[in-house]
């Protein structure tokens, strides 16, 4: 029995991509892991998130639907998937935030060849963020710079303790930085959320907002910054005033926002106001803004869209040869699509029911390592290796830094990159 030690492995669970994980592997099984959070260990042990004792059911063989799902061989599944995709006039390629960069690239090529739609998960919020960034200025910084300099951290509409557990200890509040030698004692933390959570208790100030009305808070903050009258705001104006006073005093601030801002379909409006607020703050001091991704390669897929299509919006290749991507989300027109290729995501869990109900009516090809709600609705299901553990890949950290994911376990399953590659080859 020989043990293999892998040092400084990159953890493929959230957008932090912690690169200090030490893994001991014995007989192709993970024996012990150091420096990994509870979510990370769930990923490495193939268990339920935050519950390392409960195993997740893995898809073991390629399956196609006759009356029920029946196991088949890889070739038959590929031909069935290609038939479904070739036969459709407007397919949707969805998910991809848990795949490596190269797999995402092939998926975009498939969308282009089939003249379909390409939408990453959570695009409504993130595309509007990158679009607003392009319109105003690049208020971003590497996480290391935030660690070294930031003296004010704001978490807006997110709970890092659940979505990115090591973010607080590695990059934002607690680590000692070059100019922040005392760590958390040199920093102030604010949290804005709909309900007080653990993060609110750790923060100097907690601002409670009504769900979907974050843009009003941002407007009020801008008014206060411009020294205008902000009495028409009905909420907790005293806390807002206090926060704004502190925001103008600091030398370097960082705002991290999460999916909370996409509540009630107000994502674009919220982001627009948040960027305007950051722009206003940058007149007085230095402020940066970064999204907090809960999937490990969301940043990668947006970077791919910017590189290939010069715009971060989800891509629509239907119609003429020019990609139209000017909408924040293409999921409003789901009734137009007639087939779907879902990679590493569970739309029946993550999308609201009125949207996911439309997906029930169309044939769906699914590439996912685990059984999910979507598996029960799909026509073709491919088992795949988990990227970053059983397959190599490239992932982009939340601030845009590319990192190489290692392979620590041998797997009998093909990677999503090779499955997508085979589908793409057959489409030519």
């Amino acid at each position, binding site marked *: 029995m020989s043990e293999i*030690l892998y*040092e400084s492995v990159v953890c493929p669970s959230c957008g932090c991509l*912690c690169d*200090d*994980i*030490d893994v001991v592997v014995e007989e192709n099984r993970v024996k*012990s*892991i*150091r*420096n*990994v*959070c*509870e*979510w*990370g*260990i*769930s990923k490495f042990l193939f268990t339920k998130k*935050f519950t*390392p004792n409960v195993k997740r059911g893995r898809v073991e063989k390629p399956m196609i639907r006759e009356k029920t799902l029946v196991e088949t061989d890889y070739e038959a599944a590929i031909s069935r998937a290609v038939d479904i995709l070739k036969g459709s006039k407007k397919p949707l390629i969805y998910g991809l935030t848990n795949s490596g960069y190269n797999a995402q690239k092939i998926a975009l090529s498939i969308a282009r060849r089939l003249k379909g739609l390409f939408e990453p998960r959570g695009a409504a919020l993130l595309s509007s963020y990158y679009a607003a960034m392009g319109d105003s200025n690049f208020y971003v910084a590497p996480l290391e710079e935030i*660690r070294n300099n930031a003296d004010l951290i704001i978490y807006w509409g997110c709970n890092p*303790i659940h979505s990115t*557990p*090591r973010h*607080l*200890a*590695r*990059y934002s509040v*607690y*680590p*000692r*930085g070059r100019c922040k030698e005392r*760590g*958390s004692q040199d920093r102030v933390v604010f949290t804005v959320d709909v309900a007080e959570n*653990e*993060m609110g*208790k*750790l923060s100097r100030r907690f601002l409670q907002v009504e769900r979907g009305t974050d843009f009003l808070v941002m407007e009020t903050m801008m008014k206060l910054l411009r020294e205008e009258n902000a009495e028409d705001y009905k909420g907790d104006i005293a806390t807002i005033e206090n926060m704004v006073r502190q925001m103008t005093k600091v030398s370097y601030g960082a705002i991290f926002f999460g999916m909370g801002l996409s509540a009630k379909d107000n994502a674009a409006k919220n982001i627009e106001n948040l960027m305007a607020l950051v722009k206003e703050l940058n007149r007085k001091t230095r402020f940066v803004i970064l999204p907090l991704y809960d999937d490990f390669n969301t940043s990668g897929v947006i970077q791919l869209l910017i590189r290939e299509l010069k715009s971060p919006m989800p891509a629509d290749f239907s119609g003429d040869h020019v990609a139209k991507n000017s909408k924040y989300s293409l999921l409003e027109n789901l009734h137009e699509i007639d087939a779907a290729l879902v990679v590493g995501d569970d739309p029946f869990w993550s999308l609201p029911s009125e949207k996911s109900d439309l997906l029930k009516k169309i044939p769906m090809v699914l590439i996912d390592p685990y059984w999910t709600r979507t598996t029960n609705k799909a026509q073709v299901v491919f088992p795949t290796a988990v990227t970053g553990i059983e397959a190599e890949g490239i992932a982009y950290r939340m601030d845009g830094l590319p990192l190489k994911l290692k392979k620590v376990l041998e797997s009998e399953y093909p990677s999503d990159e090779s499955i997508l590659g085979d589908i793409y080859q057959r489409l030519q």
Partner: protein
Amino acid sequence: MAKLSMYQLYHYLPKTDCEKCGFSCMGFANRLISRDVRPEDCPFLLEPEYSESLTELNRLLGPEVEKEITGLIIDQEKCNGCGICVTVCEVNMEKSQEVGAGRGPGFSDEVVLRIDNGKIKLVDPQSCRRANPSSHICRACAELCPTKAISLV
């Protein structure tokens, strides 16, 4: 675990300073907090007239727990492995500058606390500041734990 004060517990003791347990009543209260003794170690508290006091003391102190020599009690169920305690620990930082700056300790770093298999583990209690009786002041890991998985007695 709620923070207890010596006077809060002293209130329920016989206040006779008989020293049958080996300490004065105030000293006994101090050792109750550090979980070195149990209320049943006081012979007076076992008598019927002090039965209410005994029940109340047991309620305040909770069930018997396994603590480290530094007084650290880890609730493995609550810990989510965020590593804040590893980063803020002063001794960890003295041993490795990188750990103080957020990076997880490597195999060669001899640290006090580290995250092992997604949970916090006290690997070197002797190096902890609290292991030295003259400096029982550091409470950084317990105070900054967001899930209250660490408590100190």
